[in-house]
């Protein structure tokens, strides 16, 4: 059993844009994921962070083969699953599960909770009826719901409780990897901590590996061992959670970190915010060269417009896709006027 549970290489997911009434022509493509490399070690939590349109959800779905990769490879536990089909794919699904963002649409409203949680096990014919029932009870308790919850229906539960049901369903098959796609974003603030703590506990207990996809950096930092930052379909920075916050290197990461409000007015007063100019470019028509250059406060005329920066290693495991990462870090390049705002 290797340590590397998941290895993704040059993953691309392009969604064709079609036009035409009778015969549809492909006039372009939305390049949702455009060259992503990822590694996840067994037992770790990799955070995948980025704002809307960056492609992080699509990466998660491509890994799960819920969306077809346009090119690239996905190697799960040593096995190339990129083109797996049929029964082999179904078998592989037992080992990777997912938790969805929306607790309200991710559970079939017309099925009882017990049926929803039992479904993965029934589908794979894993156990007898009685065994499945026992397991459902066990799973519900594991996630903090009473056994009676099984006979109820999703609409009778709150958002946080429904998310727990989703987690119970994901655990049923003892997966190796769980892709959690914004699992707490739709929940009330006071409930998020409950679910996050639950996820952490379950990871320890069941030796789970997580790919934690979210736009909320504070949450991602809390729960992840390593973090990958995505922008417009590519990864711009990968580092351990500590390194990313102590020494962010990519200008986008800098802007992202400075934009997150901190519930402490004293700290907020002292902060310097890096404000990005303009809007996110369209993924159907990404900028040339470095995709971030159109909004980058550290943009230089020389290479940024023409050359795509490779994701290169700066400091032992900390990788950045920026031509001038070192100079920015050392203060040799300053941000453009007006991009930095005090307190």
């Amino acid at each position: 059993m290797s340590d590397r549970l998941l290895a993704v290489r040059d993953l691309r997911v392009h969604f064709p844009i079609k036009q035409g009434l009778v015969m549809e022509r492909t006039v372009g493509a939305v390049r949702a994921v455009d060259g992503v490399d990822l590694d996840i070690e067994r037992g770790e939590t990799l955070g995948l962070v980025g704002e809307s349109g960056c492609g992080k959800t699509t990466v998660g779905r491509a890994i799960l083969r819920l969306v077809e990769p346009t090119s690239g490879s996905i190697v799960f536990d040593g096995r190339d699953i990129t083109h797996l089909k049929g029964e082999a794919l179904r078998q592989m699904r037992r080992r990777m599960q997912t938790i969805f963002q929306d607790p309200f649409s991710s559970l079939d409203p017309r099925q009882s909770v017990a049926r929803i949680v039992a479904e993965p096990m029934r589908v794979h014919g894993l156990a007898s009826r009685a065994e499945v029932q026992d397991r459902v009870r066990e799973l519900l308790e594991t996630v903090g719901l009473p056994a009676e919850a099984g006979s109820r229906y999703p609409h009778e539960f709150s958002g946080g409780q429904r998310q727990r049901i989703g987690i119970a369903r994901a655990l049923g098959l003892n997966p190796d990897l769980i892709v959690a796609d914004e699992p707490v974003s739709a929940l009330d603030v006071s409930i998020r901590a409950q679910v996050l703590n639950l996820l952490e506990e379950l990871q320890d207990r069941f030796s789970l590996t997580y790919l934690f996809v979210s736009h909320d950096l504070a949450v991602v930092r809390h729960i992840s061992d390593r973090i990958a930052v995505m922008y417009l379909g590519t990864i711009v920075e990968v580092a351990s959670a500590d390194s990313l916050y102590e020494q962010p290197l990519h200008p986008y990461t800098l802007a992202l970190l400075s934009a997150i409000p901190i519930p402490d007015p004293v700290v907020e007063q002292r902060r310097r915010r890096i404000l990005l100019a303009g809007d996110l470019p369209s993924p159907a028509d990404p900028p040339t060269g470095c995709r971030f250059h159109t909004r980058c406060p550290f943009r230089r005329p020389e290479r940024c417009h023409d050359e795509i920066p490779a994701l290169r290693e700066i400091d032992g495991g900390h990788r950045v896709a920026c031509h001038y990462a070192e100079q920015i870090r050392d203060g040799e390049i300053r941000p453009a006027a007006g991009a930095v705002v005090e307190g």
Partner: protein
Amino acid sequence: MSIAEVEARELAVVVPDDTAGLWREAWRRLRRNPIAIFGMAMIALFILVAIFAPLLAPYSPTRVDLTQIRPGSFPGPSAEHWFGLDQLGRDELSRILYGARYSLIIGVVSLSIGAAIGMLIGGLAGAGARWVDSVLMRLMDMMLAVPGLLFAIAVAATLGRSLTSVMIAIGVVNVPIFARLLRGSMLAQREQDYVLAARAVGVKPRTIVMSHMLPNAIAPVIVQGTLSMATAIIDAAGLAFLGLGSADPGVPEWGRMLAETQSFLQHAPHLALFPGAAIVLSVLGFNLVGDALREALDPKLRR
């Protein structure tokens, strides 16, 4: 014991004792709605009358009582003939009662066949590949392009005037309506996360369609079914009114009865009133229930 399990012990799942799936809850909501109850009563009445017409009707609908006929005069309601006699001396009440059978048969049968075929097509289109969807929907578009009335006339011209022609016409007209409806509903379900979740678990596509998507997609179709029943009855009456129904003059079809009484509206308006009222009342029941069902099945109105 993990923290989560401790939480499970102290957490009170605030749930009422009478838990129910969405179907049973919808039924409960329906039961509480006075308009729905009224509508359901009317439908029940309509069905009972249709079934038990031979027992309820005082006379045979085709029996002619020549003694009472005088040119230019139509005996109105009397003790022996509650609704009076029609222009050929037949008991109006009995004809109205027997007429329910025809309306029911035409409505139910034609609608069921049309809806069934429509749902099959819509289901395939909504759940299947894009090209399947495209082809089927273009077919439906073509069907929708033909006006129902013209189609009915064409059928009658080909197969002759009969009840069967009317049923075929009504059935066929309903196919694209139900096809579109179910397709739309299925497509909406397809986008839901729980369908994605089922795929992620490895549920086979056919099972996803049958156990997940279909039960959730069927609600608007049921509502439409009830409302279409009302329309089917009116359509049947309308076609009969136009002379496209059964060629047999003795058949007590309400629409036909309306047509026949046009010429003597001045002298005997009650002969038009009774079949008209019968049509309206039977249709009203379905409409009321259909509206109430729409509300009852709406998941957004859940408590």
